[in-house]
Protein backbone atom coordinates (compact mmCIF):
# COMPACT_ATOMS: atom_id res chain seq x y z
CA UNK A 1 0.00 0.00 0.00
CA UNK A 2 2.89 2.27 0.87
CA UNK A 3 4.48 1.85 -2.55
CA UNK A 4 1.07 2.27 -4.17
CA UNK A 5 0.72 5.65 -2.45
CA UNK A 6 4.30 6.51 -3.35
CA UNK A 7 3.54 5.95 -7.04
CA UNK A 8 0.40 8.07 -6.72
CA UNK A 9 2.27 10.89 -4.99
CA UNK A 10 5.07 10.67 -7.57
CA UNK A 11 2.60 11.88 -10.20
CA UNK A 12 2.07 15.21 -8.42
CA UNK A 13 5.42 16.84 -9.37
CA UNK A 14 5.05 15.54 -12.94
CA UNK A 15 1.57 17.05 -13.25
CA UNK A 16 2.88 20.29 -11.75
CA UNK A 17 5.72 20.30 -14.29
CA UNK A 18 3.28 19.64 -17.15
CA UNK A 19 1.11 22.55 -15.97
CA UNK A 20 4.15 24.83 -15.69
CA UNK A 21 5.48 23.90 -19.13
CA UNK A 22 2.13 24.36 -20.86
CA UNK A 23 1.68 27.67 -19.02
CA UNK A 24 5.09 28.85 -20.23
CA UNK A 25 4.29 27.90 -23.85
CA UNK A 26 2.62 31.23 -24.58
CA UNK A 27 5.63 33.04 -23.15
CA UNK A 28 7.94 31.30 -25.62
CA UNK A 29 6.31 33.16 -28.50
CA UNK A 30 9.02 35.40 -29.94
CA UNK A 31 8.07 39.03 -29.38
CA UNK A 32 4.68 40.04 -28.03
CA UNK A 33 2.25 37.07 -27.99
CA UNK A 34 -0.74 39.44 -28.14
CA UNK A 35 0.59 41.06 -31.30
CA UNK A 36 1.23 37.63 -32.85
CA UNK A 37 -2.30 36.47 -31.97
CA UNK A 38 -4.16 39.57 -33.12
CA UNK A 39 -2.00 40.46 -36.09
CA UNK A 40 -0.57 43.82 -37.08
CA UNK A 41 -3.95 45.36 -37.94
CA UNK A 42 -5.23 45.25 -34.34
CA UNK A 43 -5.68 48.54 -32.49
CA UNK A 44 -3.85 49.40 -29.27
CA UNK A 45 -7.16 49.18 -27.40
CA UNK A 46 -7.74 45.61 -28.69
CA UNK A 47 -4.26 44.62 -27.65
CA UNK A 48 -4.60 46.11 -24.18
CA UNK A 49 -7.96 44.39 -23.74
CA UNK A 50 -6.66 40.95 -24.80
CA UNK A 51 -3.55 41.39 -22.66
CA UNK A 52 -5.78 42.09 -19.67
CA UNK A 53 -8.15 39.23 -20.54
CA UNK A 54 -5.28 36.75 -20.70
CA UNK A 55 -3.68 38.27 -17.60
CA UNK A 56 -0.46 38.93 -19.53
CA UNK A 57 -0.16 42.36 -17.88
CA UNK A 58 0.41 40.66 -14.51
CA UNK A 59 3.77 39.43 -13.12
CA UNK A 60 4.59 35.86 -14.21
CA UNK A 61 4.08 34.11 -10.81
CA UNK A 62 0.66 35.81 -10.43
CA UNK A 63 -0.26 34.70 -13.94
CA UNK A 64 0.66 31.10 -13.09
CA UNK A 65 -1.34 31.07 -9.85
CA UNK A 66 -4.36 32.56 -11.67
CA UNK A 67 -3.92 29.93 -14.43
CA UNK A 68 -3.92 27.12 -11.85
CA UNK A 69 -6.90 28.62 -10.03
CA UNK A 70 -8.93 28.78 -13.23
CA UNK A 71 -7.96 25.24 -14.24
CA UNK A 72 -9.04 23.97 -10.81
CA UNK A 73 -12.51 25.30 -11.65
CA UNK A 74 -12.43 23.64 -15.07
CA UNK A 75 -11.97 27.00 -16.73
CA UNK A 76 -9.55 26.79 -19.67
CA UNK A 77 -10.29 30.33 -20.81
CA UNK A 78 -11.81 31.46 -24.08
CA UNK A 79 -10.93 31.04 -27.74
CA UNK A 80 -9.59 34.35 -29.03
CA UNK A 81 -11.28 33.90 -32.38
CA UNK A 82 -14.70 32.47 -31.56
CA UNK A 83 -14.92 33.61 -27.90
CA UNK A 84 -16.26 30.14 -27.08
CA UNK A 85 -15.25 28.69 -23.70
CA UNK A 86 -12.40 26.25 -24.41
CA UNK A 87 -13.91 23.71 -22.00
CA UNK A 88 -16.92 23.55 -24.32
CA UNK A 89 -14.71 23.10 -27.39
CA UNK A 90 -12.86 20.29 -25.63
CA UNK A 91 -16.09 18.64 -24.49
CA UNK A 92 -17.33 18.71 -28.09
CA UNK A 93 -14.12 17.36 -29.62
CA UNK A 94 -12.70 14.96 -27.02
CA UNK A 95 -15.29 12.15 -27.45
CA UNK A 96 -14.45 11.87 -31.18
CA UNK A 97 -10.72 11.50 -30.40
CA UNK A 98 -11.31 8.98 -27.61
CA UNK A 99 -13.61 6.97 -29.89
CA UNK A 100 -10.97 6.98 -32.62
CA UNK A 101 -8.17 6.01 -30.22
CA UNK A 102 -10.18 3.19 -28.62
CA UNK A 103 -11.16 1.74 -31.99
CA UNK A 104 -7.54 1.96 -33.14
CA UNK A 105 -6.45 0.18 -29.95
CA UNK A 106 -9.04 -2.58 -30.51
CA UNK A 107 -7.91 -3.07 -34.12
CA UNK A 108 -4.26 -3.19 -33.03
CA UNK A 109 -5.04 -5.78 -30.33
CA UNK A 110 -7.18 -7.83 -32.69
CA UNK A 111 -4.43 -8.01 -35.34
CA UNK A 112 -1.20 -7.54 -33.37
CA UNK A 113 -1.72 -10.18 -30.67
CA UNK A 114 -2.60 -13.14 -32.94
CA UNK A 115 0.13 -12.12 -35.39
CA UNK A 116 2.72 -12.01 -32.59
CA UNK A 117 1.57 -15.38 -31.21
CA UNK A 118 1.72 -17.06 -34.63
CA UNK A 119 5.16 -15.53 -35.26
CA UNK A 120 6.49 -16.90 -31.96
CA UNK A 121 4.99 -20.38 -32.45
CA UNK A 122 6.30 -20.58 -36.01
CA UNK A 123 9.66 -19.05 -35.04
CA UNK A 124 11.96 -18.56 -38.06
CA UNK A 125 9.39 -20.11 -40.40
CA UNK A 126 7.55 -18.18 -43.08
CA UNK A 127 4.69 -16.91 -40.84
CA UNK A 128 7.30 -15.47 -38.46
CA UNK A 129 9.21 -13.84 -41.31
CA UNK A 130 6.00 -12.42 -42.81
CA UNK A 131 4.87 -11.01 -39.46
CA UNK A 132 8.29 -9.50 -38.72
CA UNK A 133 8.58 -7.87 -42.15
CA UNK A 134 5.00 -6.53 -41.92
CA UNK A 135 5.64 -5.12 -38.46
CA UNK A 136 8.87 -3.46 -39.58
CA UNK A 137 7.24 -1.97 -42.66
CA UNK A 138 4.24 -0.68 -40.71
CA UNK A 139 6.47 0.90 -38.07
CA UNK A 140 8.26 2.86 -40.82
CA UNK A 141 4.99 4.29 -42.17
CA UNK A 142 4.08 7.62 -40.60
CA UNK A 143 0.38 8.43 -40.32
CA UNK A 144 0.55 11.17 -42.94
CA UNK A 145 1.77 8.64 -45.52
CA UNK A 146 -0.26 5.60 -44.53
CA UNK A 147 -3.47 7.65 -44.29
CA UNK A 148 -3.36 8.92 -47.89
CA UNK A 149 -2.33 5.44 -49.04
CA UNK A 150 -5.38 3.82 -47.42
CA UNK A 151 -7.51 6.68 -48.73
CA UNK A 152 -6.21 6.04 -52.22
CA UNK A 153 -6.85 2.29 -52.16
CA UNK A 154 -10.08 1.93 -50.14
CA UNK A 155 -11.81 5.22 -50.91
CA UNK A 156 -10.66 6.30 -54.35
CA UNK A 157 -9.75 3.08 -56.18
CA UNK A 158 -12.12 0.56 -54.57
CA UNK A 159 -14.74 3.08 -53.42
CA UNK A 160 -15.57 1.01 -50.32
CA UNK A 161 -15.19 3.74 -47.70
CA UNK A 162 -15.65 7.52 -47.46
CA UNK A 163 -12.53 9.59 -48.26
CA UNK A 164 -12.75 11.81 -45.18
CA UNK A 165 -15.08 13.73 -42.89
CA UNK A 166 -17.45 12.33 -40.26
CA UNK A 167 -20.71 12.01 -42.19
CA UNK A 168 -21.26 8.27 -41.88
CA UNK A 169 -20.31 5.60 -39.33
CA UNK A 170 -17.93 4.10 -41.91
CA UNK A 171 -15.91 7.34 -41.88
CA UNK A 172 -14.09 6.19 -38.75
CA UNK A 173 -12.66 3.05 -40.37
CA UNK A 174 -9.79 4.58 -42.37
CA UNK A 175 -8.54 6.98 -39.67
CA UNK A 176 -8.77 4.18 -37.08
CA UNK A 177 -6.84 1.79 -39.33
CA UNK A 178 -4.19 4.47 -39.93
CA UNK A 179 -3.84 5.16 -36.23
CA UNK A 180 -3.79 1.44 -35.41
CA UNK A 181 -0.97 0.43 -37.74
CA UNK A 182 1.98 1.69 -35.68
CA UNK A 183 0.60 0.08 -32.52
CA UNK A 184 -0.14 -3.16 -34.39
CA UNK A 185 3.53 -3.31 -35.39
CA UNK A 186 4.69 -2.72 -31.82
CA UNK A 187 2.23 -5.26 -30.38
CA UNK A 188 3.25 -7.91 -32.91
CA UNK A 189 6.95 -7.50 -32.16
CA UNK A 190 6.37 -7.26 -28.40
CA UNK A 191 4.07 -10.31 -28.20
CA UNK A 192 6.45 -12.33 -30.35
CA UNK A 193 9.53 -11.42 -28.28
CA UNK A 194 7.75 -11.92 -24.96
CA UNK A 195 6.21 -15.26 -25.91
CA UNK A 196 9.53 -16.53 -27.31
CA UNK A 197 11.18 -15.73 -23.99
CA UNK A 198 8.46 -17.44 -21.95
CA UNK A 199 8.42 -20.50 -24.23
CA UNK A 200 12.04 -21.20 -23.28
CA UNK A 201 11.31 -21.17 -19.54
CA UNK A 202 11.28 -24.21 -17.26
CA UNK A 203 7.56 -24.26 -16.52
CA UNK A 204 6.78 -24.48 -20.22
CA UNK A 205 9.21 -27.36 -20.61
CA UNK A 206 7.52 -29.06 -17.65
CA UNK A 207 4.11 -28.56 -19.24
CA UNK A 208 5.40 -30.06 -22.48
CA UNK A 209 7.02 -32.95 -20.60
CA UNK A 210 3.63 -33.70 -19.05
CA UNK A 211 2.45 -34.38 -22.58
CA UNK A 212 0.23 -31.32 -22.98
CA UNK A 213 -0.54 -30.27 -26.52
CA UNK A 214 1.16 -27.25 -28.08
CA UNK A 215 -2.18 -25.44 -28.05
CA UNK A 216 -2.70 -25.93 -24.30
CA UNK A 217 0.93 -25.09 -23.51
CA UNK A 218 0.79 -21.83 -25.42
CA UNK A 219 -2.73 -20.66 -24.68
CA UNK A 220 -3.10 -21.77 -21.06
CA UNK A 221 0.44 -21.59 -19.70
CA UNK A 222 2.79 -19.40 -21.70
CA UNK A 223 0.47 -16.70 -22.98
CA UNK A 224 -0.61 -15.52 -19.53
CA UNK A 225 2.97 -14.79 -18.51
CA UNK A 226 3.93 -13.44 -21.92
CA UNK A 227 1.12 -10.90 -22.04
CA UNK A 228 2.20 -9.06 -18.88
CA UNK A 229 4.77 -6.81 -20.61
CA UNK A 230 2.27 -6.29 -23.40
CA UNK A 231 -0.11 -4.68 -20.88
CA UNK A 232 2.48 -1.98 -20.23
CA UNK A 233 2.93 -1.30 -23.92
CA UNK A 234 -0.82 -1.10 -24.50
CA UNK A 235 -1.15 1.39 -21.65
CA UNK A 236 1.74 3.53 -22.80
CA UNK A 237 0.57 3.47 -26.38
CA UNK A 238 -3.01 4.46 -25.59
CA UNK A 239 -1.68 7.88 -24.62
CA UNK A 240 0.54 7.99 -27.70
CA UNK A 241 -2.49 7.28 -29.87
CA UNK A 242 -3.92 10.59 -28.70
CA UNK A 243 -0.79 12.35 -29.95
CA UNK A 244 -0.88 10.34 -33.18
CA UNK A 245 -4.46 11.49 -33.61
CA UNK A 246 -3.19 15.04 -34.25
CA UNK A 247 -1.86 14.02 -37.68
CA UNK A 248 -4.48 11.37 -38.46
CA UNK A 249 -7.38 13.70 -37.69
CA UNK A 250 -5.79 16.37 -39.88
CA UNK A 251 -5.39 13.96 -42.79
CA UNK A 252 -8.97 12.66 -42.57
CA UNK A 253 -10.74 15.82 -41.43
CA UNK A 254 -11.86 14.06 -38.24
CA UNK A 255 -13.17 16.66 -35.79
CA UNK A 256 -11.33 15.64 -32.65
CA UNK A 257 -8.97 17.34 -30.23
CA UNK A 258 -6.02 16.75 -32.57
CA UNK A 259 -7.66 18.73 -35.35
CA UNK A 260 -8.72 21.38 -32.86
CA UNK A 261 -5.05 21.70 -31.88
CA UNK A 262 -3.90 22.10 -35.49
CA UNK A 263 -6.69 24.58 -36.27
CA UNK A 264 -5.76 26.62 -33.22
CA UNK A 265 -2.10 26.67 -34.31
CA UNK A 266 -3.08 27.86 -37.79
CA UNK A 267 -5.22 30.65 -36.30
CA UNK A 268 -2.62 31.44 -33.62
CA UNK A 269 -5.33 30.85 -31.01
CA UNK A 270 -2.75 30.09 -28.30
CA UNK A 271 -5.14 29.56 -25.34
CA UNK A 272 -6.80 26.73 -27.32
CA UNK A 273 -3.40 25.30 -28.32
CA UNK A 274 -2.32 25.41 -24.68
CA UNK A 275 -5.51 23.68 -23.48
CA UNK A 276 -5.31 20.90 -26.11
CA UNK A 277 -1.67 20.15 -25.29
CA UNK A 278 -2.45 20.14 -21.57
CA UNK A 279 -5.46 17.84 -21.85
CA UNK A 280 -3.63 15.31 -24.05
CA UNK A 281 -0.61 15.32 -21.72
CA UNK A 282 -2.76 14.91 -18.61
CA UNK A 283 -4.66 11.99 -20.15
CA UNK A 284 -1.30 10.43 -21.05
CA UNK A 285 -0.01 10.82 -17.47
CA UNK A 286 -3.25 9.36 -16.07
CA UNK A 287 -3.22 6.37 -18.43
CA UNK A 288 0.45 5.70 -17.62
CA UNK A 289 -0.34 5.79 -13.90
CA UNK A 290 -3.27 3.40 -14.33
CA UNK A 291 -1.04 1.10 -16.44
CA UNK A 292 1.60 1.00 -13.71
CA UNK A 293 -0.97 0.26 -11.03
CA UNK A 294 -2.67 -2.42 -13.16
CA UNK A 295 0.68 -4.02 -13.94
CA UNK A 296 1.51 -4.21 -10.25
CA UNK A 297 -1.79 -5.95 -9.54
CA UNK A 298 -1.39 -8.39 -12.42
CA UNK A 299 2.21 -9.36 -11.73
CA UNK A 300 2.93 -10.42 -8.14
CA UNK A 301 6.66 -9.91 -8.81
CA UNK A 302 6.16 -6.16 -9.20
CA UNK A 303 5.52 -4.28 -6.00
CA UNK A 304 7.08 -0.93 -6.81
CA UNK A 305 10.42 -1.87 -5.39
CA UNK A 306 12.17 0.81 -7.48
Amino acid sequence: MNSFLKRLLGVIPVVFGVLLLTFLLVHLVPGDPVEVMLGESATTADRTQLRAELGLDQPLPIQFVTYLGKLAQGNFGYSIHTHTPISRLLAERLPATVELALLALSIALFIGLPLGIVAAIRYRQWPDKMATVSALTLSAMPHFWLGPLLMLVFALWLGWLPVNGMESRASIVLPALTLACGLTAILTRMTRASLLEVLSEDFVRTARAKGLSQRVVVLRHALKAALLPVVTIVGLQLGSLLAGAVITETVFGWDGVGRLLVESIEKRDYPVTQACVLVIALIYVLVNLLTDLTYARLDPRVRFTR
Partner: protein
Amino acid sequence: MSRSAAVLSFWILLALVAPWLGLSADAIHLDKILAGPGMDAWLGYDDLGRDLLARLLAGAGVSLTVAGCVTVVTFILGTLVGLIAGYHGGWLDRLLMQITEVFLAFPGILLAIAFAAVLGPGVGNLILALCLTSWVGYARLARGQALALANRQHVLAAQVLGASTMRILIKHVLPLLAAPLLVEATFSIASLIIAEASLSFLGLGIQPPHASWGAMLRDGVRYLLVASHYVLVVGGSLMSLVLAVNLLGDKLRDTLDVKDRNF
Protein backbone atom coordinates in the same frame (compact mmCIF):
# COMPACT_ATOMS: atom_id res chain seq x y z
CA MET B 1 27.59 -3.74 -46.38
CA SER B 2 24.08 -4.59 -45.27
CA ARG B 3 21.08 -3.67 -47.38
CA SER B 4 19.86 -1.11 -44.83
CA ALA B 5 23.25 0.62 -44.78
CA ALA B 6 23.23 0.61 -48.59
CA VAL B 7 19.79 2.30 -48.72
CA LEU B 8 20.86 4.90 -46.15
CA SER B 9 24.13 5.57 -48.01
CA PHE B 10 22.15 5.86 -51.26
CA TRP B 11 19.98 8.64 -49.81
CA ILE B 12 22.92 10.44 -48.19
CA LEU B 13 24.88 10.26 -51.44
CA LEU B 14 21.93 11.49 -53.51
CA ALA B 15 21.34 14.38 -51.11
CA LEU B 16 25.03 15.29 -51.27
CA VAL B 17 25.42 15.18 -55.05
CA ALA B 18 21.97 16.69 -55.79
CA PRO B 19 23.34 20.24 -56.36
CA TRP B 20 25.68 18.89 -59.08
CA LEU B 21 23.08 16.84 -60.95
CA GLY B 22 21.81 19.86 -62.84
CA LEU B 23 18.30 19.50 -61.44
CA SER B 24 16.45 22.60 -60.36
CA ALA B 25 14.10 22.14 -57.41
CA ASP B 26 12.51 25.57 -57.87
CA ALA B 27 12.11 25.82 -61.68
CA ILE B 28 8.40 26.07 -62.52
CA HIS B 29 6.96 24.53 -65.70
CA LEU B 30 3.36 25.75 -65.96
CA ASP B 31 2.59 23.35 -68.80
CA LYS B 32 3.64 20.33 -66.69
CA ILE B 33 1.55 20.84 -63.55
CA LEU B 34 0.94 17.45 -61.86
CA ALA B 35 2.20 15.61 -64.97
CA GLY B 36 3.11 11.99 -64.29
CA PRO B 37 6.52 10.35 -64.64
CA GLY B 38 8.12 10.58 -68.05
CA MET B 39 11.45 10.81 -69.84
CA ASP B 40 11.93 14.52 -69.09
CA ALA B 41 11.14 14.09 -65.38
CA TRP B 42 11.51 10.54 -64.09
CA LEU B 43 9.16 11.02 -61.14
CA GLY B 44 6.79 13.58 -62.66
CA TYR B 45 5.91 17.10 -61.59
CA ASP B 46 4.28 18.67 -58.54
CA ASP B 47 1.30 21.05 -58.25
CA LEU B 48 3.42 24.01 -59.39
CA GLY B 49 5.04 22.13 -62.25
CA ARG B 50 8.35 21.59 -60.46
CA ASP B 51 10.45 18.48 -61.05
CA LEU B 52 9.52 15.99 -58.32
CA LEU B 53 12.90 14.22 -58.43
CA ALA B 54 14.76 17.49 -57.87
CA ARG B 55 12.46 18.41 -54.98
CA LEU B 56 12.71 14.91 -53.53
CA LEU B 57 16.50 15.12 -53.44
CA ALA B 58 16.42 18.63 -51.97
CA GLY B 59 13.94 17.35 -49.37
CA ALA B 60 16.21 14.42 -48.54
CA GLY B 61 19.03 16.87 -47.86
CA VAL B 62 16.82 18.93 -45.53
CA SER B 63 15.50 15.84 -43.75
CA LEU B 64 18.94 14.33 -43.17
CA THR B 65 20.48 17.66 -42.16
CA VAL B 66 17.76 18.39 -39.59
CA ALA B 67 17.88 14.83 -38.21
CA GLY B 68 21.70 14.92 -38.12
CA CYS B 69 21.95 18.33 -36.41
CA VAL B 70 19.31 17.49 -33.80
CA THR B 71 20.89 14.09 -33.11
CA VAL B 72 24.35 15.61 -32.50
CA VAL B 73 23.02 18.38 -30.21
CA THR B 74 20.65 16.17 -28.22
CA PHE B 75 23.20 13.36 -27.97
CA ILE B 76 25.69 15.70 -26.30
CA LEU B 77 23.14 17.55 -24.17
CA GLY B 78 21.15 14.50 -23.08
CA THR B 79 24.24 12.41 -22.32
CA LEU B 80 25.74 15.23 -20.28
CA VAL B 81 22.55 15.68 -18.25
CA GLY B 82 22.25 11.91 -17.69
CA LEU B 83 25.91 11.48 -16.75
CA ILE B 84 25.85 14.34 -14.27
CA ALA B 85 22.58 13.13 -12.73
CA GLY B 86 23.68 9.51 -12.46
CA TYR B 87 27.20 10.20 -11.23
CA HIS B 88 26.39 13.06 -8.87
CA GLY B 89 23.25 11.47 -7.42
CA GLY B 90 21.32 13.13 -4.57
CA TRP B 91 19.30 16.30 -5.11
CA LEU B 92 20.80 17.08 -8.51
CA ASP B 93 19.82 13.63 -9.80
CA ARG B 94 16.29 14.03 -8.41
CA LEU B 95 15.93 17.49 -9.93
CA LEU B 96 17.25 16.56 -13.37
CA MET B 97 15.22 13.37 -13.50
CA GLN B 98 12.09 15.23 -12.43
CA ILE B 99 12.60 17.61 -15.35
CA THR B 100 13.12 14.59 -17.64
CA GLU B 101 9.89 13.01 -16.33
CA VAL B 102 7.96 16.19 -17.14
CA PHE B 103 9.22 16.12 -20.74
CA LEU B 104 8.35 12.42 -20.99
CA ALA B 105 4.83 13.20 -19.79
CA PHE B 106 4.04 14.54 -23.26
CA PRO B 107 3.30 11.73 -25.70
CA GLY B 108 5.02 11.36 -29.07
CA ILE B 109 5.77 14.57 -30.87
CA LEU B 110 3.05 16.56 -29.10
CA LEU B 111 5.56 18.76 -27.27
CA ALA B 112 7.57 19.34 -30.46
CA ILE B 113 4.33 20.41 -32.17
CA ALA B 114 3.59 22.76 -29.27
CA PHE B 115 7.09 24.27 -29.30
CA ALA B 116 7.14 24.62 -33.08
CA ALA B 117 3.68 26.24 -32.95
CA VAL B 118 4.73 28.97 -30.54
CA LEU B 119 8.26 29.48 -31.88
CA GLY B 120 6.93 29.93 -35.42
CA PRO B 121 7.82 28.12 -38.66
CA GLY B 122 11.30 27.91 -40.19
CA VAL B 123 14.20 25.52 -40.16
CA GLY B 124 15.94 27.14 -37.17
CA ASN B 125 12.86 26.96 -34.98
CA LEU B 126 12.15 23.44 -36.21
CA ILE B 127 15.60 22.30 -35.09
CA LEU B 128 15.17 24.13 -31.78
CA ALA B 129 11.74 22.53 -31.16
CA LEU B 130 13.10 19.06 -31.88
CA CYS B 131 16.22 19.66 -29.75
CA LEU B 132 14.08 20.81 -26.81
CA THR B 133 12.16 17.54 -26.84
CA SER B 134 14.61 14.89 -28.05
CA TRP B 135 17.35 14.99 -25.39
CA VAL B 136 15.36 13.08 -22.76
CA GLY B 137 15.97 9.61 -24.21
CA TYR B 138 19.75 10.02 -23.96
CA ALA B 139 19.49 11.58 -20.50
CA ARG B 140 17.50 8.67 -19.09
CA LEU B 141 19.72 6.08 -20.71
CA ALA B 142 22.99 7.75 -19.68
CA ARG B 143 21.73 8.31 -16.14
CA GLY B 144 20.76 4.67 -15.68
CA GLN B 145 24.10 3.45 -16.97
CA ALA B 146 26.12 6.05 -15.04
CA LEU B 147 24.31 5.07 -11.85
CA ALA B 148 25.40 1.48 -12.34
CA LEU B 149 28.95 2.45 -13.31
CA ALA B 150 29.55 5.02 -10.56
CA ASN B 151 30.61 2.36 -8.06
CA ARG B 152 32.74 0.24 -10.40
CA GLN B 153 36.27 -0.51 -9.24
CA HIS B 154 38.00 1.47 -11.99
CA VAL B 155 35.87 4.55 -11.30
CA LEU B 156 36.58 4.35 -7.56
CA ALA B 157 40.29 3.93 -8.36
CA ALA B 158 40.23 7.06 -10.51
CA GLN B 159 38.51 8.94 -7.68
CA VAL B 160 41.17 7.84 -5.19
CA LEU B 161 43.88 8.94 -7.61
CA GLY B 162 42.34 12.41 -7.53
CA ALA B 163 40.91 12.57 -11.04
CA SER B 164 38.39 15.35 -11.59
CA THR B 165 34.70 14.52 -12.01
CA MET B 166 34.77 15.62 -15.64
CA ARG B 167 37.78 13.44 -16.39
CA ILE B 168 36.18 10.42 -14.70
CA LEU B 169 32.92 10.94 -16.61
CA ILE B 170 34.55 11.38 -19.99
CA LYS B 171 37.45 8.94 -19.76
CA HIS B 172 36.10 6.21 -17.50
CA VAL B 173 32.29 6.23 -17.66
CA LEU B 174 31.36 7.52 -21.12
CA PRO B 175 33.25 4.87 -23.15
CA LEU B 176 31.32 2.13 -21.35
CA LEU B 177 27.95 3.54 -22.30
CA ALA B 178 28.85 4.49 -25.85
CA ALA B 179 27.25 1.36 -27.33
CA PRO B 180 23.69 1.80 -25.96
CA LEU B 181 23.85 5.53 -26.71
CA LEU B 182 24.89 4.84 -30.29
CA VAL B 183 21.96 2.47 -30.75
CA GLU B 184 19.62 5.05 -29.21
CA ALA B 185 21.02 7.68 -31.59
CA THR B 186 20.36 5.50 -34.63
CA PHE B 187 16.71 4.93 -33.67
CA SER B 188 16.46 8.60 -32.81
CA ILE B 189 17.51 9.57 -36.37
CA ALA B 190 14.55 7.58 -37.74
CA SER B 191 12.15 9.24 -35.26
CA LEU B 192 13.56 12.66 -36.14
CA ILE B 193 13.12 12.13 -39.88
CA ILE B 194 9.45 11.32 -39.19
CA ALA B 195 9.13 14.21 -36.70
CA GLU B 196 10.58 16.73 -39.17
CA ALA B 197 8.24 15.51 -41.88
CA SER B 198 5.27 15.56 -39.45
CA LEU B 199 5.92 19.15 -38.43
CA SER B 200 6.41 20.23 -42.04
CA PHE B 201 3.22 18.34 -42.96
CA LEU B 202 1.38 20.44 -40.38
CA GLY B 203 2.95 23.60 -41.84
CA LEU B 204 5.16 24.12 -38.78
CA GLY B 205 8.52 23.21 -40.24
CA ILE B 206 10.24 23.97 -43.52
CA GLN B 207 8.44 26.72 -45.40
CA PRO B 208 7.90 27.10 -49.17
CA PRO B 209 9.59 27.41 -51.56
CA HIS B 210 12.09 25.14 -49.78
CA ALA B 211 11.48 21.44 -50.35
CA SER B 212 10.53 19.15 -47.48
CA TRP B 213 9.09 15.66 -47.65
CA GLY B 214 6.40 16.48 -45.07
CA ALA B 215 5.24 19.61 -46.92
CA MET B 216 5.34 17.72 -50.23
CA LEU B 217 3.11 15.01 -48.76
CA ARG B 218 0.68 17.66 -47.51
CA ASP B 219 0.45 19.14 -51.01
CA GLY B 220 0.31 15.69 -52.55
CA VAL B 221 -2.70 14.66 -50.43
CA ARG B 222 -4.67 17.55 -51.94
CA TYR B 223 -4.14 16.12 -55.43
CA LEU B 224 -4.49 12.47 -54.46
CA LEU B 225 -7.31 11.86 -56.92
CA VAL B 226 -5.67 13.44 -59.96
CA ALA B 227 -1.97 12.83 -59.30
CA SER B 228 -1.47 9.87 -56.99
CA HIS B 229 2.17 9.55 -58.13
CA TYR B 230 2.95 12.65 -56.07
CA VAL B 231 2.06 11.05 -52.70
CA LEU B 232 3.33 7.59 -53.66
CA VAL B 233 6.79 8.84 -54.64
CA VAL B 234 7.35 11.03 -51.59
CA GLY B 235 5.81 8.60 -49.08
CA GLY B 236 7.69 5.65 -50.54
CA SER B 237 10.98 7.53 -50.28
CA LEU B 238 10.30 8.53 -46.69
CA MET B 239 9.41 4.97 -45.79
CA SER B 240 12.52 3.53 -47.41
CA LEU B 241 14.76 5.93 -45.50
CA VAL B 242 13.06 5.36 -42.13
CA LEU B 243 13.02 1.59 -42.64
CA ALA B 244 16.71 1.58 -43.56
CA VAL B 245 17.67 3.58 -40.45
CA ASN B 246 15.51 1.37 -38.20
CA LEU B 247 17.00 -1.82 -39.63
CA LEU B 248 20.47 -0.38 -39.19
CA GLY B 249 19.59 0.35 -35.57
CA ASP B 250 18.41 -3.24 -35.10
CA LYS B 251 21.62 -4.56 -36.62
CA LEU B 252 23.77 -2.24 -34.53
CA ARG B 253 21.92 -3.31 -31.39
CA ASP B 254 22.55 -6.97 -32.15
CA THR B 255 26.19 -6.39 -33.11
CA LEU B 256 26.98 -4.27 -30.06
CA ASP B 257 24.96 -6.67 -27.89
CA VAL B 258 22.85 -3.92 -26.34
CA LYS B 259 19.83 -5.05 -24.33
CA ASP B 260 16.61 -4.61 -26.24
CA ARG B 261 14.69 -1.42 -25.57
CA ASN B 262 11.09 -2.52 -25.81
CA PHE B 263 10.93 -5.36 -28.23
